[in-house]
């Protein structure tokens, strides 16, 4: 039974502390949502890994703040794709040039559209999307 029409348009929001201990919680949530959307096993693993790397990216950047804060993950479900937005709090202090190259490489390879940007307020926003593979029957 295809339950896609039951999830389309739904939005799931997760607020996490900037704490490496809870990245696994983000992975589990992403995995659960992707499974509910009927992504295949490989796509679910891709989404899980990309969300994990995005969380790690934000945690590493946010760690420069004196007071650890929170960041959010918003999953927007549609019939054809899953859009995910991560948003940090304002990052104070100077940004270091060094980034987690493996992490960014993985996010860009695993997801279909990835945009990493700084908001006007100085927060980090990561937008990514996973489009369902189109199965062509004969």
């Amino acid at each position, binding site marked *: 039974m295809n339950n896609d029409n039951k999830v389309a348009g739904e939005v799931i929001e997760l607020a996490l502390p900037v704490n*490496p*201990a809870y*990245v*696994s919680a983000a*992975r589990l949530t992403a995995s659960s949502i992707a499974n509910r959307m009927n992504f295949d096993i*490989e796509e679910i*693993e891709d989404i*899980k*890994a990309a969300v*994990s*790397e995005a969380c*790690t990216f934000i*945690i*590493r950047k946010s760690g420069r703040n004196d007071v650890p804060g929170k960041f959010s993950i918003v999953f927007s479900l549609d019939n054809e794709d899953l859009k995910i937005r991560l948003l940090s709090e304002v990052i104070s202090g100077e940004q270091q040039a060094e980034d*987690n190259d*493996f*992490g960014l*490489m*993985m996010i860009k*390879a*695993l997801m279909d559209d990835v945009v990493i940007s700084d908001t006007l307020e100085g927060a980090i926003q990561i937008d990514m999307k996973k489009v369902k593979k189109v199965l062509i029957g004969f």
Partner: protein
Amino acid sequence: MDYNCRANFDADKKAWRVAISGEIDIYNSQTLKDSLGKLIAEHAVDIYLDCEKLEYIDSTGLGALVAMLKKVRQFGGNFHLVNVKASILKIFKITDLDKVFVIEGEAHE
């Protein structure tokens, strides 16, 4: 899910055989790096990392393995990954790390 690591020294092959299970991410990758570092400090030999029960590894985990690979290379050794799951092998291929580690056998998922 955290991770578990069991190491045995193979005196015949003069190598460390390390079985790793669970998930490696930013929370525990430094612990993994420290554990492997201690093994190399004890015996500077090849490492065989059995990944059959490794469910997930992130970029920080990859970074830890790369750091250990560099240590092992300093004395002319090699870092072997054994029984790697397809989902994890994919990550190694994306990052081109499948070209620097010796990857032997694939786990069946």
